[in-house]
């Protein structure tokens, strides 16, 4: 299915003329909290999640594991107490984080990730996972690879639409959230002949994001066929490339502002 085609048609008009495969504006603020080891606030236009990472630090005796670190995730919804849905999201996020953190490196410690939904306009799980990735980087927790997450929905006329907002999620036949690991291929960065002040940013922008083939985590709700699932996976993988490129740019900016010493 041709998702890059814009234009009028039943079910294809998105708010403010967004293309079906277009992501919302991304904003990432790092080191927002004082007492946490690492923190980040990730915003995708209407959705915003604040992540705080505490660790690796001494685990409680009942929870400690003598051979590996223990990952604890707390997912707090925007309003109200935690429900069963939030606990299920905690389990999902914990599984993804256990895949990227080298647990065997820190026995008897615990890494606690607290996610607070500040605004929810669709795609809260993706927003939370991206915020957790940025917070882990801010905390200096060693990771096997970076990861990024993107949501998409299957509309009632069987079209895939990337990065849905709340109204699109409500009206959808099925919702998907995919998380992919990524790394950067620095050999593709062409040496820039620009002035020294911009060469650093030019190198980083040219470094291509290479998203892994296999998925770190998926969460699918609704009725869909296996072909639609594979198409959604491929579409989200392309979306993750763009999120990865943005995350690296935002990290470069924040590291430069803090000083290279």
């Amino acid at each position, binding site marked *: 299915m041709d998702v890059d085609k814009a234009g009028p048609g039943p079910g294809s008009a998105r708010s403010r003329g967004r293309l079906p495969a277009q992501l919302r504006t991304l904003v990432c*603020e790092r*080191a*927002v909290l*004082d007492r946490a*080891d*690492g923190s980040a606030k990730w915003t995708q236009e209407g959705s915003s999640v604040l992540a705080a990472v505490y*660790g*690796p*630090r*001494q685990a409680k005796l009942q929870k400690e594991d003598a051979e590996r670190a223990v990952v604890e995730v707390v997912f707090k919804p925007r309003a109200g107490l935690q429900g069963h849905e939030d606990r299920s999201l905690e389990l999902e996020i914990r599984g993804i984080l256990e895949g990227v953190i*080298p647990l065997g490196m*820190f*026995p*008897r*410690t615990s890494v606690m990730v607290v996610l607070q939904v500040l605004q929810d306009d669709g795609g809260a799980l993706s927003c939370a996972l991206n915020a957790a990735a940025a917070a882990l*980087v*801010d*905390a*200096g*927790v*060693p*990771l*096997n*690879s*970076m990861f990024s997450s993107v949501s998409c929905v299957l509309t009632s006329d069987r079209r895939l639409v990337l990065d849905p907002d709340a109204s699109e999620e409500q009206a959808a036949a099925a919702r998907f959230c995919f998380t992919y690991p*990524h*790394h*950067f291929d*620095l050999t593709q960065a062409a040496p820039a002949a620009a002035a*020294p*002040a*911009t060469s*650093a940013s030019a*190198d*980083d922008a040219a470094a291509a994001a290479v998203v892994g083939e296999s998925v770190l985590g998926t969460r699918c709700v609704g009725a869909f066929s296996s072909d639609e699932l594979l198409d959604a996976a491929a579409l989200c993988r392309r979306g993750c490339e763009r999120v990865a490129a943005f995350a*690296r740019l935002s*990290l*470069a900016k924040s*590291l*430069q*502002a*803090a*000083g*290279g010493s």
Partner: protein
Amino acid sequence: MAAAGASAVKVRALVPGADVALIERVLNVHDAPSSTTFVCVGDEISTEGQEGFLRGHGTQVVDGKLVATVCGVVERVNKLIYVKTLNSRYNAEQGDVVVGRVADLAGKAWRVDLKSRQEAKLLLSAVHLPGGIQRRRNAEDELNMRAFFREGELISAEVQSVHADGSVALHTRSAKYGKLVCGQLVEVPPNLIKRQKQHFHTLEALGVELIIGCNGLVWVAPLRPDRLAAANAAAGGGGAAADEDEAAAAAAAAPPPPSRTQLEVVCRMANAIRVLTRLYMPVYPASIMATYEAAVEGEAALADMLEPAFLEAVVAQEAQRRSSAMQE
């Protein structure tokens, strides 16, 4: 009630990036480009031109290539390659002087919180017993452990060994280590503390004792006669028995409570360390003294030392010091 002398508590909103903006404003630079590029998680670190290298923190070997596991700046010191992050927890090395808080008593050991990844263990057999130096610890010693250090007390110690799984063993086998009372504790990011020959500093002219723990906890206290004797005894070395009797005698006589001027000096030193932390500048005796003297000469009030005005003065002073050092 005369309210002229009493100053109200000032509440300031936390603005992330305000300190960086302050530094940029004073130095008149905007969006200064960093001279070193950074690596991200999963980026390969080049080891060309280097046969044999030591892999440090923040790296791992994947498929024969050296790959970064954290986002930061690559540092190369001789053959050691590691990735330095902006903030990270303290990693203990053997021989480090640390300041920690006793968290728990377990069996024959105290568990000490060093603000690191794991709590460190201080074994009963590794503690300096008063009176006899080497003697077998018996069951009575074990029952009297709380007489030494209780939960919640601050102690200074040295790292005896770091095991393969990351657990740290401490010892206080010298008169200069032990319980810390009557002073101020300042928490500093461990990245700002450089390992040096001396971590115990007795500034007799000011009457202040300063302990710069490698784990980022800095202890500032008014200098007490028994601590001065202990420091001299540790420095002196030989004749240990005689000096320890002296120290014990001095400790037996309760030290007089510190005077107001002494307390103000201690507060000013602690604030100087807090200023260095806000500006993310290395914390070592020379920089602390420079900031302290700038505060004294500028006659900055104790409460105003963390205001932007004084911070700007410190930044300007440091910039001048570095430019004159570079010109030499």
